[in-house]
């Protein structure tokens, strides 16, 4: 029954690989949970769709899912997780370097706009306090650019660089592969090697025994036939009886060998499990370290963006308020009046005597 379930499950897995991953989760939840209750699928975990094939959260198409960890080669799931962590570091750096660049571009744009606008205003026909205020406002609004330059700098220093350092320290590479992952791989292999040998022995012993059993059963059947055959000769009967007893002895020997291997397996199982667990725990620690680092840097990212008490913005607001307070339309009107208006000294006609 179990075999049939597992078989159908494998078939289903294969089908799902072909269908677009996007619908997987819904289908999975609808169908699989109804027909094949999966004991360890923690329903609390929310998946963010859609996902890559061996993403831990993807259950159906993930070749590691639902296998026992101690089964041969299943430790690869742990190795994949390490590799995933390494790729995550790279992606992290890309994402936040991108963001820092974006902020820098914005700040540069603001700077350009401010410089150009101020130049235009200086060359314009505006005058007086109005002009002064206009320029001061633009100058003050440049502070926003400063804020974003600071954000970009903080992102670069406290987020991107830190992750780059972490990646270098923890995922040091030799030419082809990440050293740490290779180390784990070797340790797992070493822990599992004797076990694989043992399993091999067991399988062979099982096959030998079961083959022998088959032969034995055949011989027994032949014996029965010959017994009931009146025309059989004595010689034939003896031959058959001999083969029956030979096979029987063989079976017993093979069976005991088989059972012995099983016993050996049972006694070495605890050790095997422990040594596998020991390596796995080391991968857990490595992963825990990575998760802690990510959390730290996510917090740093947040800090980089916080502009609540940003000094530049405070400065900007102050500059705005001050400048707007100096705006004085009357003063400007008066100034213009005294230079070009009715307060100018007009040359009034007077009697001008002729001079030699």
């Amino acid at each position, binding site marked *: 029954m179990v075999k049939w379930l597992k078989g159908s499950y494998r078939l289903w897995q294969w089908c799902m690989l072909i269908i677009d991953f996007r619908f997987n989760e819904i289908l999975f939840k609808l169908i699989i949970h109804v027909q094949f209750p999966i004991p360890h699928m923690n329903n609390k975990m929310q998946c963010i769709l859609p996902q890559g094939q061996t*993403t831990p*959260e993807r259950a159906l198409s993930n070749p590691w*899912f639902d296998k026992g960890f101690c089964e041969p080669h299943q430790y690869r799931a742990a190795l994949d997780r390490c590799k995933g962590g390494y790729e995550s570091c790279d*992606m992290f750096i890309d*994402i936040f370097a991108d963001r820092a660049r974006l902020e820098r571009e914005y700040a540069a744009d603001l700077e350009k706009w401010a410089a150009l606008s101020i130049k235009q205003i200086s060359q314009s026909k505006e005058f007086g306090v109005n002009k002064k205020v*206009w320029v001061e406002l633009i100058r003050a609004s440049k502070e926003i650019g400063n804020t974003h330059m600071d954000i970009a700098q903080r992102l670069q220093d406290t987020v991107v660089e830190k992750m780059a350092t972490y990646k270098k320290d923890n995922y040091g590479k030799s030419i082809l592969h990440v050293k740490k992952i290779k180390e784990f791989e070797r340790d797992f292999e070493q822990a599992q090697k004797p076990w694989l040998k043992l399993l091999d022995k067991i399988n062979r012993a099982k096959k030998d025994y079961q083959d022998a059993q088959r032969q034995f059963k055949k011989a027994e059947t032949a014996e029965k036939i010959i017994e009931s055959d009146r025309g059989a000769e004595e010689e034939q009967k003896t031959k058959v009886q001999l083969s029956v007893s030979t096979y029987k002895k063989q079976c017993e020997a093979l069976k005991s060998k088989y059972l012995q291997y099983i016993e050996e397996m049972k006694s070495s199982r605890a050790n095997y499990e422990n040594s596998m667990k020991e390596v796995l725990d080391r991968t857990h620690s490595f992963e825990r370290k990575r998760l802690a680092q990510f959390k730290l840097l996510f917090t740093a990212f947040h800090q980089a963006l916080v502009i609540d008490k*940003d000094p530049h913005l405070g400065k900007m607001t102050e500059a705005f308020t001050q400048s707007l307070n100096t705006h004085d339309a009357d003063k400007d009107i008066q100034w213009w009046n005294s*230079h*070009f208006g009715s307060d100018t000294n007009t040359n009034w006609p007077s009697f001008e005597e002729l001079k030699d």
Partner: protein
Amino acid sequence: MNLFSRKSVVPPPSLSSQPSISNAATAGPEAFANNSAYGRGFFEPGAYSVALKRCENGHDLAQQLADMFEERAQLESVYTNQLRAWSRKWHTELVKSQEYGTNKKLWDQTATAGEQMAEVHGALSSSLTDSLIPKLRQWRKDNYEKSRIHYKKTKEFEKEFMDAQKSWSKLLDKISEYKSAYYAACKAAKLADDAERSASEEQRRKLADKAEVARREVGSAKAKYEQAVNEAREQRPRYESAMKEVFERTQAFEKKRLDFFKETFEEFSKVLETATEDNPTLKKMNEDYKTSITAHDSNEDLSWWDQNYGTQTNSRWPEYEEYRD
């Protein structure tokens, strides 16, 4: 009275204490060196054109202000779109990645934070585009109506100035005419005098008559000239007040513009402040992010992984399998 009753021009004290921005002015009222209108008396003929120019400048300046804001709105819009693109791109990448658990959720929150920031700057851009700039343009349209070649308002002012100045100009022309006549008479009288003095006895009498005529001419020309000048003196107050009245209206028009500019500047500063401080979206962004950070749980993630791929999984252990037919 002096030949030139104009006092020497002293720059008002306020100007010298102003920062470099006005000293560096190369155009407009503050650029004295380049400004041909500077140093003339307002009431002199044609000098009122400077007030008309100021009216027209107002239109250009309003245009300039609107352009400046539009460029700013554009810049913000670019930033907004970049933030959005960044947020969406990395959200998709993250979803396809090997990441899992609360760590993944928190990471996703950082992408969302980008989206929220984009919202804030999008709002800034649209408050410029949807409210500030249209208001500016509308104000400009209302106050600077154009008919085919000129601004109505300016034309109106011009007409009024011309009306006020018409009779005065005529008067000035008259004065100028009489002055020339008087000078000419004076010159002629002098010539006649000289001729008389240097002439011989017989001609003296003839020339003396001529000189007498010339002198009388001078007298009458002088009288005419003086009368014209007096007329001007009489007319002056009426003329001045007529001109001033029109001028005050241009002043009021300019003040309206200055007040509107101040209003616009204030609104702009408010828009910028809204985008950067006390902004509800930014606040929410911070709140959401903080919540995500506290939800981050390495242990939960690790134990989930362990349950699904680690030692908590049910391994199949080999067991004795009897032969079956």
